[in-house]
């Protein structure tokens, strides 16, 4: 009975958010297009033969960047921005009364958006293969499953980090600027613009201890068939999730105690 109820909740949330997202499909298509920066980077790498110095063939590098594009598409998180807006508009108050953590609502929103985004990402990949037919590859089922899993874990890590930042709204009102600050290292260190393997040694020595390479570089290497430490990658992803989750729970319970509705 109880599990049925939970299923029902999840299903309803997803259904509502999916129809909501379909309403914004043009928006989402545009958003998908704005994620094509990895392809421009690929063009710089191959056009200047920079890939030779890091021992990755042109084909493998183009697969890497296509995978990076996909991983990024399905791990984009914006909960800090949504939460900030809702909290400034006072919309959080009714959510707090409901017997459901508001973050489930945002979570369902993200999942629904990813489902809506899927066809657009496929179309972009299709165009990519028209221009680069030699890089076409079909990963086998195990690899595909593992990379979807690691992309989902990457999404979870980013969702948790951003939810923690979103909770700072209870104290500072404008938490999105902290999120924009944190986005900078994510952008440059996650492997979206250059594979982590190409980084200079003084960065490579510590970067694997941070969560950044596991956000895009690890899933993208996995999907594209480049060399990567599979068990180590998953281990670190899970470790970071285990570290972040209690922190989120703590800040959430502290924050809701601190919360006063706008205008009170």
């Amino acid at each position, binding site marked *: 009975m109880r599990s049925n109820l939970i299923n029902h909740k999840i299903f309803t949330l997803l259904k509502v958010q999916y129809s909501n997202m379909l309403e914004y499909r043009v928006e989402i298509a*545009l958003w998908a297009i704005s994620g094509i920066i990895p392809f421009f980077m690929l063009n710089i790498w191959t056009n200047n033969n920079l890939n030779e110095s890091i021992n990755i063939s042109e084909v493998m590098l183009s697969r890497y960047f296509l995978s990076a594009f996909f991983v990024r598409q399905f791990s984009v998180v914006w909960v800090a921005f949504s939460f900030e807006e809702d909290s400034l508009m006072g919309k959080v108050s009714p959510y707090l009364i409901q017997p459901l953590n508001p973050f489930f609502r945002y979570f369902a929103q993200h999942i629904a958006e990813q489902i809506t985004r899927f066809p657009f990402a496929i179309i972009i990949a299709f165009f990519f293969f028209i221009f680069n037919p030699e890089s076409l590859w079909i990963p086998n089922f195990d690899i595909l499953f593992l990379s979807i899993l690691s992309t989902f874990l990457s999404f979870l890590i980013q969702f948790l980090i951003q939810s923690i930042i979103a909770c700072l709204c209870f104290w500072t009102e404008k938490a999105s600027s902290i999120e*924009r600050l944190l986005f900078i290292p994510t952008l440059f260190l996650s492997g979206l613009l*250059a594979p982590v393997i190409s980084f200079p040694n003084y960065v490579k020595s510590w970067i694997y201890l941070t969560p950044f390479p596991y956000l895009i570089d690890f899933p993208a290497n996995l999907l594209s068939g480049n060399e990567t430490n599979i068990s180590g990658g998953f281990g670190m992803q899970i470790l970071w999730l285990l570290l972040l989750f209690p922190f989120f729970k703590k800040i959430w319970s502290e924050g809701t105690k601190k919360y006063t509705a706008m205008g009170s």
Partner: protein
Amino acid sequence: MNLRKYIKVYAKFLHTSLASELEYKTNILIDLVTAILSLIGSIFLLSIFFQNSNTIGGWNFEQALIIQGIYTLLNGVTNTWFNPNLTEIVKYIREGTLDFVLLKPIDSQFFISLKRISPSGFLEIMLGIGILLYCFKINQIYLNLSFLVLCFITIICSISILYSLWFFISTTTIWFVKTWNATEVLRSFLYVGRFPLNSFSFSLRLFFSIFIPIAFITTIPSEVFLGLTQLWKILLEVIVTSVFVFTSRKFWLFALKFYTSASS
């Protein structure tokens, strides 16, 4: 047109928007750190490209740094004026508040484009200028008055082109209403402006000269700064700028004919 009136109105705009922005002082501080980190990040990326290669697209590292300087400067201008103002157009049109703008005895484009200002972009402008000065030193560029005038003209031109692009895209909101992300697409394309255009393949170079004139936004100004450009390129830049500014103005006036206010 009454210039004195416009200057007076602009002083009022500055006063009100600075007053409201300075409410969030920590926010500005965080934005400053973000700007610095973002610059460090892009220099880091550039250094990866130059790790095993002396030139990229015929530019060496010191010269490519000039492009970074110009990009940072332009990004600062975007964050100070274009982003806070032109993303508001969507709101004006969705909520029908454009009515109030149109009723005012002042030019609507002036009002929409300059109403708000975001002080955190200033630091980026400073950073950009700082890098440019540093680049003058390491590239041993001899400064004289006519050179500085040329530099100033090209920078003004590229700011105007950038503005026209932003304004053009924002204007399309009158027909499509929900296009928050259209400017994001523009931003991601402009990201390419951080790198020498010659480092891209021929087809992309063509795309970035014609559809999104990055050649005119960062490449030609950088060449002017290096003293490498021919006079006809500067003339072309001025012509392209006037075409862009003129067209975007006409487009706005044309689009206003189709504005029907909200719920009518």
